[in-house]
């Protein structure tokens, strides 16, 4: 199976005043097409930094990230914008919906700028929100807002869906519904999905679990037995 991302000797160093912070050290990873990947690790383990680099929000200090056949390492600002625009779907911890736009308009925001998008209403149906498409964010619950965010992320048919603590701001039952939406997208559309979380329970629904600590990969686990979100034990 071809690799969607090939990450080689990736390192990221931040300068915080006088101190150098090594957020990532010598990461080597392969992320395959169509997989559901969970990045696990405590705060400060570097998982968000890794996600940001994969998502084209940040560039590494050294090493290389190859997306399909293209290197993201030397991409400039405009290249990264276009990469995000065409290939990446983002789901944020705090949803980041545009409060002045309805659910369907939030999805349309993305479909308007992509090449072969889904119908926004279709995308909302996929996350079981077809009925609520004309509601404004303030009229939706947290879980519903997150599902709108997922619909917005997948509507452009991205190659990869990057989710940063997608259930972090939600209670268990709502979190399950959101994870079901992610699972469905991964299964039905074949979208490679990367979820970062510090909730180890979510690992049970992944194809591959990558554990990070102190900027290094401590273990990579390929799983064959995937649990449904409903069966996860929190």
């Amino acid at each position: 199976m071809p690799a969607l991302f090939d990450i080689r000797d990736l390192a990221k160093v931040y300068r915080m005043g006088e101190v150098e912070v090594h957020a990532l050290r010598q990461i080597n990873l392969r992320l395959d097409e169509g997989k559901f990947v969970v990045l696990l690790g405590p705060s400060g383990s570097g998982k968000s930094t890794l996600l940001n680099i994969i998502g084209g929000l940040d560039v590494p200090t050294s090493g290389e990230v190859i997306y399909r056949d293209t290197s993201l390492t030397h991409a400039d600002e405009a290249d990264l914008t276009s990469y995000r625009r065409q290939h990446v779907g983002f789901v944020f911890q705090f949803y980041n919906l545009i409060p002045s736009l309805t659910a369907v308009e939030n999805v349309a925001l993305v479909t308007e700028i992509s090449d072969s998008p889904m119908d926004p209403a279709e995308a909302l149906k996929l996350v079981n929100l077809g009925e609520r498409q004309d509601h404004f964010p303030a009229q939706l619950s947290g879980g519903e807002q997150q599902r709108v965010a997922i619909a917005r992320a997948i509507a452009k048919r991205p190659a990869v869906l990057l989710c940063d603590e997608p259930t972090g701001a939600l209670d268990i039952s709502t979190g399950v519904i959101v994870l079901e939406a992610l699972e469905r997208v991964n299964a039905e559309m074949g979208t490679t999905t990367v979820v970062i979380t510090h909730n180890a329970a979510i690992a049970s629904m992944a194809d591959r679990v990558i554990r990070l600590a102190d900027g290094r990969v401590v273990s990579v686990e390929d799983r064959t037995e995937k649990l449904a979100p409903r069966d996860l034990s929190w």
Partner: protein
Amino acid sequence: MRITPLNRKLFRDLLAMKGQAIAIAMVVAAGVAVYVMYMATFTSLQRTQQAYYQRQRFADVFASLKRAPLRVVNELAALPDVSVVEPRVVSTVTLDLPAFEEPASARLVSIPVNRRPLINDLYLRRGRWIEAGRSDEVIASEGFVLANKLNPGDRIPAIINGRLRQLTIVGVALSPEYVYTIRPGEMVPDDKRYGIFWMDEQALAAAFDMEGGFNDVAIGLAPGVAPDEVIDGIDRILEPYGGLGAIPRSLQLSNWTVQNELNQMQTFGVLLPVIFMTVAAFILNVALTRALALQRPQIAALKALGYTNRAIGWHYLKWAFVIGLVGVVIGTAGGASLGSAIIDMYNSFFRFPVLLFGVPVHVVVESLALTFVAAGAGAFTAVRRAVAVPPAEAMRPEAPPRYRRSLFETPLIARQLGTAGRMVIRNIARHPLRAAASVFGIGFAVAILMIGFVFNGAIERLIVTQFWEAERQDVTISYVEPHSSTAQYALARLPGVMAVEPQRSVAARIRSGHHDRYLAISGVSPTQRFKRIVDRGGQAIRMPPGGVVLSLTLAKVLQIKPGDVVTLEVLEGHRPVRTLEVTGIVDDIMGLSAYMDITALHEMMHEGNVANGALMLVDSAHEAELASTLKKTPAVAGAAFKRAVLQSFRDVMAANMSLSIFINLIFAGIIAFGVVYNAARVSLSERSRELASLRVLGFTRAEISLILMGELALLTLVALPVGGMFGWGLAAAMVHTIDSEVYRFPLFVTRQAVAMSFLGIIVAACVSGLIVRRKLDQLDLVAVLKIRE
């Protein structure tokens, strides 16, 4: 002194929002600057004027007459409340200044030789007083001397009562009577071609056959006496001697002009700062409301620590006061330098011994008070709302903003709008008051800029109406004495003269009930070849054969309408008194004017084709030759060449208007910039998370800029027509204060004036938009997604 932690917080918070704080402070500064500029100039000018009038004993009543024997002085002095009477001989003569082709003229005013005048005393700047028995010595007015670069000892040829005489300047002086010197009948002063010469009483009387008599008188009244009561008595005494009607100090041309300037300054000095301060209060409110929303956790923490609502409220009110204080400091300095520029300009029009600019303490105190009221009012609701939130509530993030579809979004429009358009429209609809405040603020910037351009356009219109439509002649001649039509034929033979039209006007008092005015009645020929009666739109009015046509201003003063009758008391010749029907009222640009058919005028005066002046069409190739001939023609008292008059008119107006347009441009720029910048910063602060999310989703910088800038562009676009209306109203209000009996200022809002002001504001809005756009480029995409607002 120990700085409390709260005050330290105050300064750091202000530092953090320094861009907005400076923008608001600049709008406050603009208001303070206008106030200081006008009020300090007003006070400086008024104090100088009052001190000068008092020291030089400026007269209370002025009267001109044909000729009266000196014993009449005793009769005048015997009137109750009259304290001083100074009889004079006054005459206008042609000067033969070699530097000019066209003749210059001077007003000769007699002064006693061996004493100083009892009233209207001169302020001798240089040289000496005239010596007894020296009939060639004159003291010249400073404006004339400076404009012509003359010095004591210089000689000037003048045609006095038909004879060429050499006058020697022995002194340079100023007079409270001629603070503002203008040749009668002209619109702007021309110091090069018109001056005042003071001359020995005896010599002047001898030259004009006035020995033992006088033709002008200045009268001083007992303190506190209203001149109106005395004027009737003076008119009664002077009537048999060809009295032309006494006028109080308030109508004396020089004083009237200075007074009018003072009145205008006072009006603008109150009106404009109030507008500026209102705008400042609005944007302060918007900025503080947003800043305090960001401070919710801090307010909660302060409350939890035990700070009272009052202490926290005062802390945030101080934000506004500190910003206001910075505005007062900048504004006072700015106003002082603009005010001194205005005083410099006044010094070129008004002649005072010393006119210095100073900023009185009371003006600074008042501007401080005005600022604190505006800052307090602007901050009050923002602070109250923020402080009123209970502590636990304040700890939680503010509820997500509720949006609705705006009223504009019919399905058809919604489809057209696109996502960015919808975001813009809904954001505006969610804060309608804030949007209105921005529109109001930008609108006033448009208005202030527009005023300058409107006045510029009005002057151009005035020039066209006055110099091309109403008066089509090239040269206007006035005779020393009325002449028969033979003079006209003599003029026609002069070099370059192509056509001559005689002009006849007589001094008269026009009366209706108890309203009256002194003015010159102009005779109009039925053909109206050169001089025409035109309304303010430039349309010529047909002169009816009978009756009298009045200007609208005069009709208003006399409170009459067409068909009413007025009484005309002619002050020349056999002084006929007639009752005439008002056969027309013309809405013109001049002040008080009255016209009669020239034949009817001759009949009333029992005279043939008499004229006291002529209008001529000349070949410009021979203008120089004609001018030098006219200079040496004794019967010609004055000759005004349109080209020269127009040039000096334009010079004066250019000097005047460029300063005020420049000032308006600065102030409008500050307001527009302040309002747009503030609106953009607030919008950016509220939506940075939203915009950063869009960037993460793959939107380009240009695309998110469009959303933020689109909102500003829309507000600016809406503000333009609103501002156009404000500008029209403000210009109308200002024109109203100028509208006077001397001349009326036409209100012409030209397309060009509107376009220029719109353009100016669009540029200012773009500049502030671009500055804020740079902030968009600095959005931290990663950080903004992590924190929950």
